């Protein structure tokens, strides 16, 4: 997966260091990858390997006082690294959407879903409140959320985690971002909601041509969704491969360990008979 001009999002030689009183310490280094239009790039790694640091660097969410971000991050040819906060705010949510692990913390509890939904749309477009509401309902209908009118009037704590995550994704999708970063989007959800959320992400990818950076430690999620996969360990990329290649022929020791240790329903002798 060579970085080239056709990539929507391109990260080149990314180094992130945190400055402390005792000098600086490197969080991630030599990160290179690109995502093409409508593709899903899986990002795998254990906790603390730098997955979230990488995604936060793309969005420029690190505090520049304490963090030193070097390298180049381009979105459709436009350099993001070092961009003014004012400029970045226009990009966040519109061109790059971000879906967090815990949907409960991503909404503010004091406003209704509708209020927050409409606020997001209005701050990035010239639509008025009525048009924004129509757009919100349109998108929610298209992603099969039941009864959008009622849903908009509810407060975040009145919905289940799975439901809230789907609303979150609808909100992220309504401005048709070119890139969506999903940081462990299903880790906090039960199996059935997980399936619904993953289906929804795929729908958005195929309908809007959104490129998705999918961060997960669950190889099940990766094997269902990703086109290409990068594996991170200790702040470095240790392996980059097509998803089939990664599962069939893992190269790096850590990848092999990941594949070996995952729990499985089917014994080695008769693999996947149920699936076939």
């Amino acid at each position, binding site marked *: 997966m060579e970085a080239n001009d056709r990539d929507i999002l391109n990260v080149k030689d990314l180094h992130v260091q945190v400055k402390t009183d005792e000098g600086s310490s490197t969080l991630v280094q030599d990160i290179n990858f690109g995502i093409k239009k409508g593709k*899903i790039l899986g990002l795998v790694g*254990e*906790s*603390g390997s730098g997955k979230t640091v990488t995604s936060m660097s793309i969005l420029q969410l690190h505090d520049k006082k304490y963090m030193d971000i070097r390298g180049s991050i381009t979105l459709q040819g436009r350099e993001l690294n070092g961009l003014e906060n004012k400029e970045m705010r226009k990009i966040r949510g519109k061109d790059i959407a971000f879906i967090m692990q815990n949907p409960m913390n991503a909404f503010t509890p004091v406003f209704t879903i509708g209020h927050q939904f409409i606020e997001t749309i209005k701050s990035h477009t010239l639509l008025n409140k009525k048009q924004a509401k129509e757009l919100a309902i349109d998108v929610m209908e298209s992603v099969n959320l039941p009864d959008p009118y009622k849903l908009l009037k509810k407060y975040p704590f009145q919905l*289940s*985690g*799975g439901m809230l995550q789907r609303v979150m994704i609808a909100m992220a999708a309504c401005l048709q971002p070119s890139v969506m970063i999903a940081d462990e989007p299903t*880790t906090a*959800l*039960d*199996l*059935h*909601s*997980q*399936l619904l959320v*993953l*289906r929804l992400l*795929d729908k958005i*990818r195929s309908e809007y041509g959104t490129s998705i950076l999918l961060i997960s*430690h*669950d*190889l*099940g*999620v990766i*094997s*269902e*969704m*990703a*086109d290409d996969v990068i594996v991170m360990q200790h702040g470095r990329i240790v392996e980059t491969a097509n*998803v*089939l290649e990664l*599962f069939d022929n893992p190269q790096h020791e850590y990848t092999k*360990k*990941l594949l070996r*240790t*995952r*729990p*499985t*329903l*089917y014994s080695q002798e008769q693999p*996947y008979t*149920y*699936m*076939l």
Partner: protein
Amino acid sequence: MSLLQVKQVNLSFHSRKLFKGKDQTNKVLNDISFAIDEGTCLGLIGTSGAGKSTLGKVILGIQRPQQGQVLFQGYDIYNADKATQHKIRRDLQVVFQDSYSAVNPRMTAERIISEPLENYEKLTIGEQRRRVIELLERVGLNEKDIKKYPHQFSGGQLQRINIARAIALKPKLIVLDESVSSLDMVTQSLILQLLNELKDDFGLSYLFITHDIKAAFSISDHIAVLEKGELVEHYHSKDQFLSSKHPAVKRLRDSILAEHPRFRTITTRANMG
């Protein structure tokens, strides 16, 4: 005689809306009966809201059911005298999902693990420390960790401390309520491995509550499926689960993600082999 017997447990929660007057009854557990034998592990699976954790609380003696009995070693835990209850609590331990909120942030690892020892065993300071170190080593940590506070551990390490605390008194049954769900894959498999070893070493029984079917299968001898407060199926082997025709089980099974990209069902792509 089984170690734990749950007999026709019924539990419902009542709620009353302010100003609307009418009582609402929400049936959480409906006529649940099962048993766990000594040295075995029962995996309890179900979607969120099925009543798994409530059932766990009923078994731990935290949530009294309206009807039915929970018998531990033959004693009814809700109607036992004080001395028996004290004894039961020793043999019945729990490990929760969120390892950080299960410990006091102001206690060191040593104090966390020695708390049950202080309550049940009169040991000298030296003996107690030796026991704590033994326990730490048993769960894969070491002596150096004894003075550390919870925030100095990773989630996986802290879960090991929770496990050390749970096994400190050599209990008979441990309720594992989503104990491995929030850990990453590698840590998860290491903790499952540890639990399996402890089970063999101490002859422990587990009630393994989870929504992760794969994790449940890797540790359980039996599998029970809970759906909307009802125990819908009970299996003694994986194959029974994989071939069950029950709609709730089928739904669960259909939500299992593919183990290899070749068998993916959510995304289909022309370039996929």
